[in-house]
C-alpha cells in the first residue's frame, strides 16, 4: 500500500518563477501591447483602435527606410566582425604573457559604457579637432561625418567594429582553445596545410561558438541605440536613423504612443523571428 496520495500542491513551487517572469517581462510588455491597440489624448482617456497603428507603421515609408538602414548596418558589421574576430583569435598567442596582454586588450572595449564609446568616437572623428577626422582631412580626404552621410556611416561602422569585434574574438578564442591537441597532431601527420587545418578542424569545431556570436551580434547590432545616438543622433538628415533611433523619436519626440508601441512590437518580433530562424537553420544539420 502506498501512503502517497496525489495532489497538485507542487504547482506552488513554480510560483516564484511565474512572478519573476511576470514582473520583468510580461507586465511591461503588456503595457506596450495595451498602447499599441489604443488611441489616447491624455487625461487617461483611451479609445480602442484595433490594428490601425500596425497598418500605419507597416505602410509608412519612414519605417521601411529605417528598417532598410538597420538591416544594412547589421549586415555590414556582421560581415566585418565575424571574419575579423576569427582571424584575430587565430593570430593570438596560445600561452604566456602575450596571451594575457591580448586578452586584456580585447576585453577593454567591452568594459566601456556605451555612451562613452559614442562620445569617444564623436570626438575622435571630428574633422577639426578629432585625431581620425583631422588626420583624414590632412591626408587629403574630405571627411566630415556631421555633413556627409557616407562619412557618418563609416564612422558608425568603425565604432561598432571597434566596440564589438573583441566579443567575437573572445568567443572564437575560447572555441579554439577547446580543440584537443590530438587534432592538430593528426593533421600534421596527415600533411594538412594551414588552410586545410582551418577548413576541416578549426572552423567545424568553432561552429557552435560562432553561432552564439552571430546571434549575439545580430541582436545587439539590430538594437543599437546609445552609441549611435551619441555619435550622430541619426544624422546627417536621416542618414543614420536606425530603427531604435526612429522609435525613440516617434515615442518621445512626437509623443505618438500608439504607433510607437506598434512599432516596438514589430521590432521585437523581427528580432525574435530572425534569431529563431538563424538558430534553426544553423542547428538543423545535427538533428539528422
Amino acid at each position: 500500500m502506498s501512503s502517497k496520495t496525489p495532489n497538485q500542491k507542487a504547482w506552488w513551487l513554480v510560483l516564484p518563477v511565474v512572478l519573476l517572469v511576470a514582473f520583468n517581462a510580461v507586465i511591461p510588455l503588456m503595457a506596450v501591447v495595451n498602447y499599441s491597440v489604443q488611441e489616447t489624448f491624455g487625461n487617461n482617456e483611451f479609445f480602442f483602435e484595433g490594428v490601425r497603428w500596425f497598418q500605419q507603421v507597416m505602410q509608412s515609408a519612414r519605417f521601411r527606410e529605417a528598417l532598410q538602414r538597420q538591416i544594412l548596418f547589421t549586415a555590414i558589421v556582421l560581415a566585418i566582425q565575424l571574419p575579423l574576430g576569427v582571424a584575430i583569435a587565430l593570430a593570438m598567442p596560445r600561452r604566456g604573457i602575450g596571451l594575457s596582454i591580448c586578452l586584456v586588450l580585447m576585453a577593454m572595449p567591452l568594459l566601456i559604457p556605451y555612451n562613452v564609446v559614442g562620445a569617444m568616437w564623436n570626438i575622435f572623428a571630428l574633422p577639426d579637432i578629432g585625431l581620425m577626422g583631422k588626420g583624414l582631412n590632412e591626408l587629403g580626404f574630405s571627411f566630415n561625418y556631421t555633413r556627409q552621410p557616407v562619412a557618418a556611416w563609416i564612422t558608425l561602422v568603425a565604432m561598432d567594429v571597434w566596440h564589438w569585434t573583441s566579443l567575437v574574438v573572445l568567443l572564437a578564442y575560447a572555441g579554439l582553445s577547446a580543440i584537443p591537441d590530438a587534432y592538430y597532431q593528426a593533421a600534421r601527420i596527415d600533411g594538412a596545410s594551414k588552410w586545410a587545418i582551418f577548413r576541416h578542424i578549426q572552423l567545424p569545431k568553432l561552429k557552435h561558438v560562432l553561432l552564439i556570436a552571430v546571434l549575439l551580434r545580430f541582436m545587439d547590432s539590430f538594437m543599437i541605440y546609445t552609441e549611435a545616438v551619441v555619435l550622430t543622433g541619426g544624422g546627417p538628415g536621416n542618414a543614420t536613423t536606425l530603427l531604435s533611433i526612429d522609435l525613440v523619436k516617434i515615442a518621445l519626440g512626437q509623443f505618438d504612443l500608439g504607433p510607437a508601441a506598434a512599432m516596438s512590437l514589430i521590432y521585437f518580433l523581427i528580432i525574435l523571428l530572425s534569431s529563431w530562424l538563424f538558430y534553426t537553420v544553423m542547428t538543423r544539420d545535427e538533428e539528422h
Partner: protein
Amino acid sequence: MARIHLEQLSHSYRPQPRAEVEADWALRGLDLQWADGGAYALLGPSGCGKSTLLNLISGLLQPTQGRVRFDERDVTALEPGQRNIAQVFQFPVVYDTMSVFDNLAFPLRNRGMAEPDVKARVIEIAEMLDLGASLANRASGLTADGKQKISLGRGLVRSDVAAILFDEPLTVIDPHLKWRLRSKLKELHQRVRRTMIYVTHDQTEALTFAEQVVVMFDGQVVQSGTPVELFERPAHTFVGHFIGSPGMNLLPCEIDAAGVARFAGHAVANASRDLNAARGKKTELGVRPEFVHFAGVGIPVQIERASDVGRFRIVDARHGAQLIKLLVAEGEPVPERQAHLAFDAQRTRVYADGWAVA
C-alpha cells in the same frame, strides 16, 4: 619501410634542463633499434615517458638530445608530415564534417595524389578495415571503435608509411569491442607487415599484440624482450612486479660467505653464478607466484588467505613480516595454517639494487 633506430635519445619539457637532475628529464639516453615490419609494444606506467618517446618518433616533438633514424636517414629535424609515419591517438581523431571516404582520402589528397588513385587506395583500405559499407556516411556519426579504425585507416592508406604508432588506442573503446579491435590489429599486421609500435600501460594488450615488448620506467628502458623473456627473466624488479598478475614476489636476501643468496636461512637461488659482486648492495630475491610451491621442508609460513581467481587460487603466505604470494591450481589442497614453501630454483632471480644479477 624502414628500420627505426633511436640513438642516445633524451627529452625534457623544460626550457633549460639540468643534465644531472633526473626529474628534469622525461626521457633519458634511450638506445633502441626496431626491425622493419615488427610488432612492438611500449609498456609502462603513466608518466614513464612512453608517449613522449612515441611523439619523438613521429616528429610531433623534437628531442632535446639524440637522434632518430629511419634506415640510414636521419629524420630528427623533419616535420611529422615528411616522416612517413602514421599515428593513432588515445582519443579518436576524425574530421567531423567529412565523410568516411574523405577522411581516408585526406592524407593522400594533401600529398597531391591523383583522384583515381586515391579512390582505388581508399576502397582497398576500407575493405580491409570493414568500413566499406559506411564510406559515404559522415565520420562523426560513427562509434568510437569505428572512428579509431578511420584513424588507423588514414595511416594504412599511405603506401609510403614506414611505421604506424598507437598511443593507447583502446582507451575509449567498450570492453567487448577491445578484444575485436585488438585481433583486427594483429590480423592487419600479419597482412601488411608494417612496423607497428603500440604504447600501453595494460600488460595484456602489450603481451598479446607484440612480438617484442619494451618496458619503460621513469624515462628509461628497463628491459626489451619477448613476452616470455619478460615473464621468466625480468631484468629489473620493476618488470617483475609490473608484469604478471599478481606480480613477482620480491624478498630481501643476504649473500652468504660462499656467494649464495639466502632468504630466511635457506639457500634458494640457483648458485650457478658467483654473487660476491652483489655484496654490499641492496639484494632481493625475485620469484613469481607461479614458481612457489608447498613442500615438506622449506621456508615456514603462516597461511593468511586464499582468493579464488578462476583456474587458480592466489594464496597469501607470511614469513615474519614478509608476504609471499603463490598460485595454487584448482583442486589442489591448501594447508590450513602452517606450511612450508619451496622456490623453483631455476626460475628464482637475484637482484642487486633493482637489476638482475642471477
